[in-house]
Structure formats: C-alpha cells, structure tokens
C-alpha cells in the first residue's frame, strides 16, 4: 500500500500523480474464505479490517451489492459522539470514539475527525434536569460530559436565537468536548484501503441471495457471482439484514424508515460545534466545506425508498431557522435520505443468530455512523472468537426475551 503523506503527495505532484494506486483492489470472488462479511458500508469494512489486523484472519471477503459506502455510511450527518445514558451504551459508543481518535493515523487516511464538541441544548427546567442526569451518567462512566449553563452554552453557538421573540430560551445543556464530526465517505474508503492492503477481498456489485446451512452451521452464501463457501458469516447490511436472516428463518425486530438529511450552500465559518436542540428536535453542524448539515426526526412511514417527504423537511427547516434566524439568508442545496433500521429500544443488535457461525451487527437506526469502528471491532471479535466481547454482550438479540432493553430514547427523556 503506497503510503499517504505530505511528502508522497509532493513527489507525486511532480509526476502528475501517475504513481497513485487504486485505494482498494476490486477483487473477483474466490470459491472459499475463512470469513465473509455481507455489507460494504463502514461497519462491514471495519469488520474485515479488524479481522485481518487484530485476529490475523485475512482470507476475508466483503460482499457489497452496490458500491462501497453507498448506503447509510454515505448518507448520514457525520456526527461522532458518546453522550449517552446507559453505561452499556456509553461503553459501546465511547469505544467507537476512542478508535476514531486514532483512526487517521492507524489507517493512514485522513478521515478529518473534527472534535469540535457537541451541545445538546435545553430550554426548560425539566429538560435541564434530564441533561444533568445524562451528564452525571457520562461522568460516572468516565466519559467527558458536563452540564453547561445559559451563558456558556450561548457562547458556543453565538448565532443562536436569543431575541425576545425566540420560541425557546436557551437554558444550557450537555456538552461533550470530544464529540464532533468526521468525513463519512473517507471512513469507508480508509477502512477499505487498509483492509485491502492486508489481503481482504472487497467485492462490489455482489448481492447475497441465500445462506447455505449444513447441520445447523453456516456453510456459505449464494451470490450473484455464484456460491462462496465459508464457515464464518457476518451480516452488517443495515436495513437489508432482516431480509438476509429470513433465509435462515430468523426474524429481526427491525422497522425501516427514511431519515432525511439536508445541506445548505457553503458559507464561511459560522458554527463551530455540533448542536442538537431539544426544543426543535433539529440538529446542525457546519462541514469543513462550509455547508450547514442538518436533520431532525424520521419520516414515520416504513419504507426502503431512500427518500422522504415535505412535512418532515418543513418541520426540520422551521426548527433550524427558529434556532438560527440568520440562516434564513441561506438556501437548501441538497437533500437526501437513508434507510434507518430501527429497533424497538433504539439500540443495535450485535451477536449470534440462527445457525452457528452466523453473526449480525445491525439495527443501528439513526446512530450507526458514530459507532462504525466499534461495530466492526465487536463483530470481528464475534466472528473470530465465536463469543461476545463484554461490550457487545448487552446488545445481543436475546435481550428482548430477557426483558433487558436498553432504551436510550426513553431513558434520557429525549423524544424520538
């Protein structure tokens, strides 16, 4: 793998960049692998990377039906954070954040992790109480969380509406300094390049049509390129995962909805942090290119359509301008939607299902991007060792039968 650096960039610049190699090898599938990962998004690619890097298993294939990173990894609003309530969630998301913190150097690819902080802002005493609850939970989990009062919060978002006619008066909120954003496409490409360099086969345009099971164990998959044998199968295909587990008779408690995201025309820096305002339910940050990236709630109609409709657009945009009236000077440049796989308790599904050798990592709903390194890390652990790491155990599918839901949305009082 040709190393990326200012020096190599300079050298190649003198050679009209003729020496750069493909970022990942576009492989043709072999008949058999030691492990197969279905889903070429951030989670699937990270899984393959960690299988090779940590567990020494590099006869691995990643099967992606479209182009890598083309699902939710390429459609989210790029926020990374671990400001959660339950210790299980904090452990999970902070594992991801810690891995993100070293990722550019580890993978030799600039994912532009901008730890500019995130403010969850409140406007009522009741909300501030909930924020205090979450901040204390974070501190007890040894994660950086603190409660901010109105002046400190307003200083973080100087353009926020503080006029007499403002609908909501900023009262403060939860601040996580290590939270921030990253370049979403780059995360997928970075993992793909590193995995590929370690020998992983990344196969695009390859859809899985069936799972072979023999004697209660995984034997392989049926694909558009024919059968591929393996005894270790990991599914990281987000909303498509239930369709895959249906092949082995496993029902997953997942509903797919569209989550819209919006981007304004680029402007010079005017917002330096990530903001989620509980009053409006709209969250916003500014990309390094200058575009305001914002979003809000789901389009609450089950769909695989990767598109949303006007009512949510209007509601989210009204929320944005209510918070930042000055943004009324701007225009909407792009709008898109991802298909988010929502689980009843808004926490992911990680663990073994069905025949032995089959593991899933899905159900991330609206929060999968921030967890990519952890999802990959934990799924690779499951596939390599055949058992949970302690961080993934609580997210096993069996939690529903046990009654041990991890309901972040209700637990933190934040409307979902």
């Amino acid at each position, binding site marked *: 793998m040709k190393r990326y650096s200012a020096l190599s960039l300079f050298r190649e610049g003198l050679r009209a960049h003729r020496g750069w190699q493909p970022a990942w090898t576009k492989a043709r599938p072999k008949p058999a692998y030691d492990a197969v990962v279905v889903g070429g998004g951030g989670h699937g690619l990270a899984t393959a990377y960690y299988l090779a890097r940590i567990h020494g298993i590099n006869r691995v294939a990643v099967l992606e039906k479209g182009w890598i990173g083309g699902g939710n990894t390429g459609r989210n609003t790029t926020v990374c954070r671990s400001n959660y309530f339950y210790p299980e969630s904090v452990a999970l998301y902070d594992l991801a954040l810690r891995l993100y913190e070293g990722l550019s150097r580890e993978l030799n690819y600039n994912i532009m992790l901008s730890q500019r902080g995130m403010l969850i802002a409140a406007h009522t005493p009741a909300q501030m109480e909930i924020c205090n609850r979450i901040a204390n939970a974070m501190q007890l989990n040894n994660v950086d969380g603190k409660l901010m009062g109105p002046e400190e919060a307003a200083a973080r978002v100087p353009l926020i509406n503080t006029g007499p*006619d403002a609908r909501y008066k900023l009262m403060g909120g939860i601040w996580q300094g290590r939270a921030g954003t990253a370049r979403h496409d780059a995360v997928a490409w970075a993992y793909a390049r590193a995995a590929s360099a370690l020998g992983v086969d990344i196969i695009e345009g390859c859809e899985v049509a069936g799972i072979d099971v023999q004697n209660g164990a995984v034997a392989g998959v049926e694909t558009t390129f024919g059968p591929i044998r393996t005894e270790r199968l990991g599914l990281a295909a987000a909303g498509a995962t239930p369709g895959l587990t249906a092949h082995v008779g496993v029902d997953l408690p997942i509903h797919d909805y569209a989550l819209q995201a919006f981007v304004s025309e680029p402007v010079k820096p005017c917002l330096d942090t990530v903001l989620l305002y509980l009053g409006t339910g709209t969250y916003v940050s500014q990309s390094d290119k200058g575009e305001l990236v914002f979003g809000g709630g789901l389009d609450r109609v089950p769909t695989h359509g990767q598109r949303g409709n006007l009512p949510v657009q209007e509601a989210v945009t*009204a929320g944005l301008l209510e918070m930042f009236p000055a943004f009324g000077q701007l225009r909407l440049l792009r709008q898109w939607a991802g298909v988010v796989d929502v689980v009843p308790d808004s926490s992911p599904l990680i663990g073994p299902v069905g025949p032995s050798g089959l593991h899933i990592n899905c159900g991330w709903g609206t929060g999968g991007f921030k967890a990519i390194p952890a999802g990959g890390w934990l799924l690779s652990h499951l596939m390599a060792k055949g058992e949970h790491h302690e961080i993934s155990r609580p997210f096993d599918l069996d939690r529903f039968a046990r009654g041990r839901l991890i309901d972040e949305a209700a637990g933190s009082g934040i409307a979902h």
Partner: protein
Amino acid sequence: MTGWRHQTLGRNIDRSKPLRFSFDGQDVDGFAGDTLASALIASGQRILGRSFKYHRPRGLWGMGAEEPNAVLDVRHGSEHWPNTRATLARAQDGMTVTSVNAWPTARGDMFRLMDLAHRFLPAGFYYKTFMALPWRFYEPMIRRMAGLGRVDPSCAPRADVAQVSAECDVLVIGAGPAGIAAAKAAAETGKRVWLVEESSQLGGTLRWRGGEIGGTPWQEFAAATREIVLAAGGRILTETTLWGAFDHGSFAAWERGVPERHWRIRSTRTILASGGIERPVWFANNDLPGVMSAEAAFHHLILYGAAPGRRVLLAMASDRGVPVARALTDAGVEVTLVDARKTPVDCGVPRVTGRIEAAHGRRGVDSATVNGKRIACDTILCAGGTTPTLHIWCQAGGKLDWDASRDMLVPRPGTAPMTVVGAAAGVLDLETAVEDGWAAGSEIEATNRPAPKSPPDHVFRPDPSLPGRQWIDLQNDVTLKDVTLAAREGFSSVEHLKRYTTLGMATDQGRTSNFAGLTAMAAVTDRTIPATGTTTYRPPFQPVPLRAIAGPARGALYHAPKRLTLEDMHRAAGARFREYGGWLRPATYGAGDETTVARIEAQTARQSVGVFDASPLGKLDVIGPGAADLLDFTGYVRMSTLKPGRARYGFMLSETGIVYDDGVVLRLAEDHFLVSTSSSHVEGVRYRLEDARQDRIGRGRVFIHDITQGFTTLTVTGPKAREMCRKAGIELPDLPHMGVGQTSFEGSPMRVARISFTGDLSYELSVPANLAHALHDRLDTALPEVGGCWIGLEAVLILRAEKGFILIGKDTDGATMPHDLGWGGPRTRREDEYIGKRSLFTPEAQGDKRRQLVGLRVRDGDAVIATGSHLIEDQGARRSLGFVTSSCFSPTLKRPIALALLENGRDRIGGSVQVFNDGEVRSAEVTMACAFDPKGEYLDG
C-alpha cells in the same frame, strides 16, 4: 476587450429607468429589468469571482441556475443574500454586490497564488495528508478557505413565506414551446392547468431565438395560451421554480415574486417540459473569463442588449450555433465559427474547421489555439450540445437511457408518472417539440417517430490527450486530470467519482459538469455510458431558500402550546406562565423569586386552601357495554370492579411492561367511565385505547370521546376546602375520598370529584368552559375569606413530591415498571390478560436489581439535592445505582426532600447512599417515597 451594451437590443430592459449598484466597490450602471449578470456583462465587468480551490479568475458562463461562477454576495437595504446567482437576481438601484471567496476583490484576489501550487492540490489531496497532527490543528485554516459567501449575524430574515396547498388536473412544468403547447391543449379540453415557469416570461428559448408555434408568432401563441388556461380555471406561475417531486404526485414549488410562496401542488397528470442545458466544450484553460455558453450569449444579447465581447470564436458541432453567430454578427460582433464537424455546412459566417485546443490569457481570454494555430479573440462561446434537464423526472423515480444517436441521456418511458416533451425528452426540433407538447396536453399518443439512425457527426468530449488543464466542474475546481486520478485510484463508479472529486456537488448541482464527468470516466475506464451509471437526483432542483421551506412557523407560531380558557384571569392575578406538557400554565402567582413564592403557595395550600387550574388533565369518556373490558385490557389496575360513583388510580403499560401513563379513572355508570390522563399524553392514551377498541374489544361495544377541552377543572385543595366551597356558594355532594358526584352550578351540572394529588382534602370541580369565568369569580371571591390563594404548578409539584406521588416521565423512565413504583399487586394477583403482562415476568422484570422509587433525606443542611444526581455506593467502584428524579425544599417538613429511582431501593430503606453530582458527593438516607402523612390522615381535612 470585454462585454458591452448594445444601443437598441434588449427586450427586457427599460432604458428610461437607469439604475446603479456597486460591485466590489466599483459602480455598475444598468437598467430596470437587468439581472445582475446582464448588467455586469454589459458594463464590461469580466471577472466576477475566484474559483474555490485555485482562486483562478472566473467570469459569467450561463444564463440561469446552471451558472457555476457568478455567485455573489448581495446587500440591499437591510436585506442580505450571501450566495446569489447573478443570472437569477434582478438588479436594483443601490445594491451592494461583492464577490465571494476572494479578497479584497475578485480582480485583485490575494489568494491567486494558490494556483501555482495546483500540482500538489489535486482532487482529494486532503485525504492523503494532514495526519501528523489531529485535524483540529489544520481545520481552522481549511474552513476559512472554504465556503462561498458569509452569513451576516445581524440579518434575520422574517418568516414571511406563505405555504399554500393546491391541486390541479394537469401540471405543466416549463413554459417553453413544448410546455406552452401542452398547456393550451389541455386547457382547451377543459382541464384546470397549472403552468409553472422558472423565468419571468413564457416562451423559453423562443424569447431570443424567435420562431413560430403552429404557424403563429410565438408571442401570440403564448398570449392565447394564457387566456385559455385562465379561462378554464387554471393558473400560470412565473418566477416560480418547481423544485421537488415527492410521493403521491406531490410537488413543491418556490414562487419568488411578491408575495413569496411555497406551493405544495398535487396534480392528477404531469407534463415535464423543462428544456435542456447547453453543454460546454472542453479545452485547456476553458475556465477563463470570456468563455461562455453560446446560448447564454444569445439570451443576454437579445433580452438585455448585453454583448459578451467584440471578437468571438464560437465552437460548435451542429447548426444550433448558427443563429447565435448571425445575431452577434448583426449586432456588430466579429464572429468566427470553429466547426468540429467533418462535413460542415456553409452558413455565411466566417468559419474554421477544427477544434479549439486551448484558451489563453491571464485575466481573461485574449487568444485561443485552434488546430495548432494561435487566433486572437476576447470571447469563446461554446455550443457543445444539449443535456436534457431531467431532475424532476429522476426525483419521481424515473430512469434514464443512453441514446447514442442523440448523444443524450433521455427518459425511459414508463418509469415515472409523467410525460416528458420537448428538449427535456431530447427533441430539439421546434416543430416536433410543439407537436409532442400538443399531444401530451390533449392526452393523445404522440406519433411514433423513429429516432435518428446515425449518431451526430461530431460529439464533444473532454480529451485527455490535450496538454493543459481542462475544467469539468468549474465551481468546485475539478479538472479532467482529477477524473483520471479518480479512475486510477479506483473511484470509478459515478457516485464514488462525485464524492471523491466533489464533481457535481457545488451550488450549480452539476448541471454543466455531470455529463462531462460521466463520459470522461466512461472513456478512462473503457466502459459504455450505461455501464458507468448516472448519479441520482434529489430535491431541490435548484437551491431553494430555507425560508421558503420553513414557512411562517417561527416564534409564537412555532409549536405553540395550548392555552387555558382562564388564561386572562390567571394573568390578572399576576401569574407567571411556563409550558408544562404542551400547555401554557401558571407556574407561580405574583412577583418575587419563583422558588420562594412556590413554597409560600404550597404552605398556604397545606395550611388553609389553594386553588389551581387542572383543566389540561385529559378527560376521555369511555362508553359502552364493553367499556369495562376495554379498561381492564388496556390498564394495569382492573377497573371493572370499580363501583359507579367511585374513582381509582391506575396505570397504562406498554407491551414492554413499561409504565406509559398514570391517572385516575372515574366510573360514572355501569357502562360509562371517565379516564383521566397526563396532560401531555391525551392523544397517546386515546390512540392506545382506540387500538384495543378496534382490534380486541369490538367497534360496536365501546366508544371513546375526548372531552378534555370542553371543561375547565379547578381544584380546591387544603384543610379548608369544604369551607371554601361553602363560602363560594357551591353545594358539595357528600363524597368519600375517591368518590365522584355532581352538583349544580349556574343552572348547569358540575362534576365534583374528591381526588387528591396533594395529599390534602381536595375537590376537583369541572364545568363547561363557558362557565369557567363564573366559577373562577366565585372561588376568587371566597379565597381571601379563608386565607387561601391561587397556586401554580410549581407549588402543586412540591405538594405531590411531599407525598411521593410520581410524575410520568420525570419519576419514571424507559425502564420503570409498575412494581418498581410499589404497585406490585395486580402483577401478582391478576390472572386475566392485559397489555404488558407478559413483559412483567421476563428474567429482567423479575430481577433483584431493579430501580425502585424511594425517597432521599440529607442531613447536611438545607441545600436541595440537584435533580439528575446519580446514586452510588458508599465504597467501592463508582457505578450508578440510580438517579434523583424530583427534588425540592419541603415547606411542610421544613427540609429538603427528594425522590429517586434506586437499585433495590426498597430493601435499602433506612440505609444510606452517596449522591453524586458533577464530581461532588453528598450522603443521603434512603427513605420511603412518601415523606408526609404516609397514613393519609390529611385526606379528610
């Protein structure tokens, strides 16, 4: 040589109304009717901006939304629009216009030296470096270099765009010749037609090309169309951008006029006549000011009299460029055609056969290399072909097919619910376009016309063999070399190409770059165009102001809370209001520190009497022979055993066994219950009841009526409650605790329920809302006589906290089950089915580490515990055992009290626990949740 104003040409400008604005500090003169672009061109301003990455000088390219370069910051009076496209903005007297991303001016940009480093700044260079230090070190510099205009913090545009819904029989998008013909045809069959046009006039390209529609001069045809459409009940919207196609035949359109409107249009049939965009021609330095679309030059000359230069080279490969050349020549411009066709046709304009290989010039075009030879010129016009504008088609799910014979991507019939006609369908011939429009409007099958068999004589493509840099995406500074690099690095799918190079992601949304990028990538990777794929199109069709989408929802009109009938009376009594559960309610009465006032109100209520407005509590009538069954099934506490005239406290659980709501149910008759819900959960509870009614109990057996807002409920609470009512002339029925009855008030029935949320003797008095003021008056008069007062919600919260009464969502969370709150009875006793039952017996529900409701008592002073503090062990590893849910100073007990959910709480009563808040720790004693009068002796007064 630069642009200039023709003496007479310019249909759209009014020379009797001159105007002046400034651009980068220089005065620019124009006329009413000018756009910023036309005025700038005509005044000879050539450099309108600097490119995003390399800060190369840029000039005007186009005439509409496809314009990639002329993005300007516009100020007019108190208005400020940072990223205005000069081609779409009307010039107005007194405007202050500045270039963006350039300093101090576009002409003299300080950062122009960036271009010298271009070798080291290819597409995606930032992925390969900036890793030595955390990104935060490099980011500020990168951010400052990025972004176009600037947000003015002091400018807050009003939320004044109306959002209006409409419907029509036929929606015609685009008022060029095909669209006009379609609209007229449809209107003539009596349909209500809505014709939506982005520019300010009907006519499309005919406005400068001229021509006839159906043998009539186009202006007459357009006028006749307008008449017929309006007569048939339709509408014509100009200066309106139809920007989004959504599900179920819904469309969004932005009307820019006065008043400005956001339209939501529902149409039965849709005809897309959105025309096409001229393609560039690619050669080295094709980004220099002076390189322009030929069609745009034509448009500006005829409509505004703005000519681009004096010595023009016009690169073309079809006859479409000829009228442009002729018009320019007639206007006094020296034009040479550079015709790339192998067998070009003579048309009377000087011609060179061949192609442009490079443009030259430092700040604008001063010459070009044609067939290896240098030719002096000041303007290069490009007639590179046409790309159909199919965004709306694709947004609606339509697919595209590659038509090699037309060298275009055209709509695949049947893949979207609309008919495409005219240039948008790849039909450039005027007569044919009109015919197709007519057929679509009349709902007749268009004559099946065979497509041209042979591909065009010459198609323009970016040629990698040419030395020098050729620009593909002007705004994002993406060159052909970047496309080659992307292919080399494996970013060869169209989506990867776009995301890696940012080609097509600028504010012009790839209108002039997507096709080039696609064909270049196809060529470099040796694939066909269909195999390489196309990008998806998403709303908006063109950047739309956020204000238009947000509409009027702002301030008092954003998520407005519900208002009490007696709000005016509470205000008169000095109430300070706050939102609780979606309602605006009195928090306290009178001036002073809120916490102090609330304590005094609570104290008064405990000692004599307090009255509060409890109207927002939900009131759902549940009536019918199946009413008791419904409540038994949907509730945790059985209500079928409740006697008429009595009330009982209960819970509604979710299927997960988690407490969803609590409330008191009143039984008014055998088959008539009144369910009270939390004020914020009325709709939610109603839906859950409806769900069970329809799916389980039976629609004919029980009915649910929401009568919450029909009545005002005032609660009289305190030891002197009875005396108070007597003094108010209210005859209370004799009721036991949790009894309900009726009395008369002003000739109407008044429900009286003896229910206590405060722990004191308490009567809830409910009257129809039109008697609310009368009841308020009576009570208000009687209050001082018993030494009572009006109490707000803050006082009520204190009183209920003293009793350990929960508030849903505050003292319960997403894991709280009824037995955690001490209500384990029904769980152990009920044998019948009810919602949530199974979940109450999972291993987790039966576990011994559940968080249970308890009270907390501190002995280290009067400081109240912070709500949201967590509870931890006295020793050992710090792990959260739970958290504080309610906390206040109790005026009754004269000490701080608190409620908390604590792991194994009930077993820990009497013991101690540590309270953690933001790093500080206090000690607390675990007590019962009820801190005051656990035996309930005060309930009788």
